């Protein structure tokens, strides 16, 4: 399973932008206009996709695709 591709797919659906057009460094809040609820939606979707439980404290770090991938990998590899 390609973790990056899966996560990009999740975020593409939430942000409403095609997967190949997503900038992995763009800020969800500042660049894509997502609010705190959408951030939680991303966390929940990633947890459900990979069957992992992400520490709530990590939520504040999940500001762009790159960070989400990094954090998800920490839990998937455990």
């Amino acid at each position: 399973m390609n973790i990056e591709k899966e996560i990009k797919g999740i975020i593409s659906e939430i942000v409403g932008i095609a997967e190949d057009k997503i900038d992995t460094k763009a800020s969800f809040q500042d660049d894509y206009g997502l609010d705190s609820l959408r951030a939680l939606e991303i966390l929940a979707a990633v947890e459900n996709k990979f069957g992992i439980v992400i520490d709530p404290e990590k939520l504040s770090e999940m500001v762009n695709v790159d960070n989400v991938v990094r954090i998800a990998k920490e839990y998937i590899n455990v």
Partner: protein
Amino acid sequence: MDIAISGMGVVSTAGYELEDFWNYLYGGNISYGVVDEFNNPNYRVHIGAVIKDNMWRENLTDCENVFEYGRASQYAASAVLRAFVDANLDRMSLKDTRIALCIGTTMGEVDYEENISELLVKDDANDLPDIKKMAYRYSSDNIAEGICDMLGIRANYYMIPAACSGGNYAIALGEKLLRANKADIVIAGGVDVFSRVAFTGFHRLLTLSPDYCRPFDKKRRGLVIGEGCGFVVMEEKEQAKKRTDIHGCLLGAGVKSDRYHMVSPHPDGDGAYRAMKEAIQTAQIGKDDIDYISAHGTGTSSNDRIEAHVLQQLFGEENIPPTSSIKSMLGHSMGAASILECIASLLMMEKKIMLPTVNLIEKDECVTFNCVPNTPQKNKMSYVMSNSFAFGGQVGSIILKGK
């Protein structure tokens, strides 16, 4: 018109007699613990405040049709009846009195929706009559209708869902009705049952504390879901005094919209600030007159931080009155929270004692006021403010005066 609060009734996780309710909270007891229904691997948090027995229902023994209605309606009828008794009102001799019920809630008779959902999963055609019966009694007007039916009273009613500000909104509407001469007596309050929907939702929002509700603490981790019901009797002061001892008076109410976000408070607490200011203005007192504030104080990171910020903006950093949150003990009883806090505030004023914020180990830096940590404190208690900030940005603030 001076509006008195002449009676109060509670059905809560801290008891259902006013004296028991007071003693439980005065003793700093917490009324939450592991909830069996959620004590499984599907939930990461298992703590909630649940009314464990049905003893509260004993005062409905002689009432009609109790089991035709859902749990929220039964809580409400029981608490209204307690408020009647406390106000020395004989419900059999109120034929010519214009009574209005104003009832706040978050999810109404959600118990019925949850039962229906479970039966639909079961998919057994024999359950259809029960499903239809519960669906008929699901819409929120049934709560008010149920109170009238069970208690045999002829009252007008307004169901006012305003999430966690339900109680304060009900009081605000009650005040409107009395001043517009639309009612002689208003019974205002709020009710919510412990619900899977609420627990699952807050759980998914990562706002549930895994152990304690710790408002204003540096290491607070969220709220504890609860349930309950409270009602107060509101009427013109002299009319009340002819019949009974009053608990105090409602001086003013401010209800506003944050108009910012469905779950997050405005980052500057704008709506809360305006609601508090309006409450003080309509009460015609100075903010320096306020002796104590009953906080919304849910124990979440954002609520407590912004609540502290707003208090600073309104009162100035050095002049914030002592402020505590009884949610530290009751948990968050949703639509009943602000009415239970109103009732607790009136009891605090009678006893001249501020109830504590328990579970406080280290105060957060943003909390510059006395949050009455862990043990009750004596205080002059002439004027009290009680605040609530709800989902959807519904904010409410009331000012009470002791008797």
